[in-house]
C-alpha cells in the first residue's frame, strides 16, 4: 500500500536510507564521499601530467581555479586569498553535490538543511574567529557604520547585528530551499506525466508536463551552478567583512 504512493510522493526522494545505522552512514554520506572523491580525482588526474599547454581536464580544473581565485580577489582583495582553499572547497563541494542531485534516481545532499547550515556555519565561524583574531575588538566596528548620526545609532547597530546573525540562516536556507523546491517541482511534473499516461485517454496531454519537466531540468542545472556560485560569492563578501570590518 505504502510503496506505490511513495514512488510518486515528491518528498520520498529526500529520505535518508541508512546503510550502517550504528555509525550514521546513509546514502547521503556516500554521496558526500563520492563528491569529495570526484573532485579529488579530477584535480589529481588533471595535475598528474601537468603540462605547459593544458589538456581538457587540466583546462577545466585550471579554469575553476582561476574563476574562484578571481572571485575571491575581487570580493575580498589579495588578503582574502588566504581563504582561497576554503572557498574553493566550498564551491566545488556544493557544485558537485548539486550536480550529483541531477543524476536520475540521485540524491541531493544539499537539499538537507543541516548540511547547508553546517556549510554556512563554517563560513560564519571563520569570519568571526578570523575577525577577532585579526582585529580584536575592532571587529565589532562591523556593526557601527560610520557617518550615522548619534541619535539613530542604537537602531542602526541593532539592525546590523540582526543582519549579521541572519546571514548563516539566509545562506543555508537559500541553497537548501532552491535545491529542495527544484527537485520537488521536477518530481511533481514527472509524476503528472506518469499519472496522465495511466489515466487512459487524457494521456494525450502527457507531453505538456513532460515538456515542462524537460525545461525545468535545464533550469535546475542552471540553479545547481548558480546556487553554488551565489554561496561562494556571499562567502567571499562575508570574509571581506572579517578582513576589512570598517564600512
Amino acid at each position, binding site marked *: 500500500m505504502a510503496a506505490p504512493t511513495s514512488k510518486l510522493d515528491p518528498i520520498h526522494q529526500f529520505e535518508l536510507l541508512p546503510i550502517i545505522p550504528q555509525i550514521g*552512514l546513509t546514502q547521503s554520506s556516500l554521496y558526500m564521499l563520492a563528491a569529495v572523491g570526484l573532485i579529488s580525482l579530477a*584535480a589529481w588526474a588533471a595535475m598528474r601530467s601537468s603540462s605547459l599547454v593544458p589538456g581538457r581536464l587540466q583546462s577545466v580544473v585550471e579554469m575553476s581555479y582561476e574563476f574562484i581565485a578571481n572571485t575571491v580577489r575581487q570580493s575580498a582583495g589579495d588578503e582574502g586569498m588566504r581563504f582561497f582553499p576554503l572557498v574553493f572547497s566550498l564551491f566545488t563541494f556544493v557544485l558537485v553535490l548539486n550536480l550529483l542531485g541531477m543524476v536520475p534516481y540521485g540524491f541531493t545532499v544539499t537539499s538537507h538543511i543541516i548540511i547547508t547550515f553546517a556549510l554556512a556555519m563554517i563560513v560564519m565561524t571563520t569570519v568571526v574567529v578570523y575577525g577577532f583574531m585579526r582585529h580584536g575588538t575592532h571587529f565589532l566596528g562591523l556593526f557601527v557604520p560610520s557617518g550615522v548620526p548619534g541619535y539613530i545609532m542604537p537602531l542602526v547597530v541593532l539592525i546590523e547585528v540582526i543582519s549579521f546573525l541572519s546571514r548563516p540562516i539566509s545562506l543555508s536556507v537559500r541553497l537548501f530551499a532552491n535545491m529542495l523546491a527544484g527537485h520537488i517541482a521536477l518530481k511533481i511534473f514527472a509524476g503528472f506525466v506518469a499519472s496522465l499516461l495511466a489515466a487512459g485517454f487524457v494521456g494525450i496531454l502527457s507531453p505538456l508536463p513532460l515538456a515542462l519537466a524537460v525545461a525545468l531540468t535545464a533550469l535546475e542545472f542552471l540553479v545547481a551552478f548558480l546556487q553554488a556560485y551565489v554561496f561562494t560569492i556571499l562567502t567571499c563578501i562575508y570574509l571581506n567583512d572579517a578582513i576589512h570590518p570598517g564600512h
Partner: protein
Amino acid sequence: MAQAQAPAGAPKEGSQVAAHAPHQPGFPPFQANTFGGQLLWFAIAFGLLYYFMSKVALPKIGAVLEDRRSRIARDLEEAQAMRQRSEEAEAAYQLSLTEARDRSKGIAQEMRDKLTAESDVRRRALEAELAEKIAASEATIRSRTTAAMSNVRGIAADAATAIVERVTGRAPDRAVVDAALDRTLR
C-alpha cells in the same frame, strides 16, 4: 517491536520503513535525529576535501599556473630583447651602409683628383716641351734670319760694288762700300 510484529503477518514493507525511521515520519530534511550522523559524515567528507585541496591540489595547480605565467612573461621579455637587438643590428647596418657610401664617394673623389693631377702634370710637361720646341724653332729662325741678313749684306756689297763699277768703270773701295752699307742698313 518490529520483530514481534513480523510473524503476526504485518506488511513487510511497513516494518522495514518502521525499522529505518521508527521516529516521526515527517519531512525528511527536518528529522532532527538524522542530524548527528549527517553532521559527522559531512565533517569527515568536507575535512578530507579541505585537507586534500589546501595541502595537495591547490598548491600544485597554483604552481603550474604561476609557472606558465612566468614562462610567458619570460618569453615575452626575451622576444622584446630580441626585437631590440634586431633593431640595433638594423641601425648598425644602416650606419655602416652610410659609412660605406661616404667612403666610396671619397674614393671616387680621390681618384678623380688623382687623375686630374696626373693629366695636369702631363699637360704641363707637354706644354713645356712644346714651349721648348717653339723656343728652339724661334732661335733657329732667328739664327737663320741673322745668317740670311749677313748674306744680304754681302750680296748688297757685291751688288753695290758691281753697280758702281759698271757706272764708274772703277771698283769702289771696299771700306767705302761697307760704310755706305752700314749707313743704309741701320
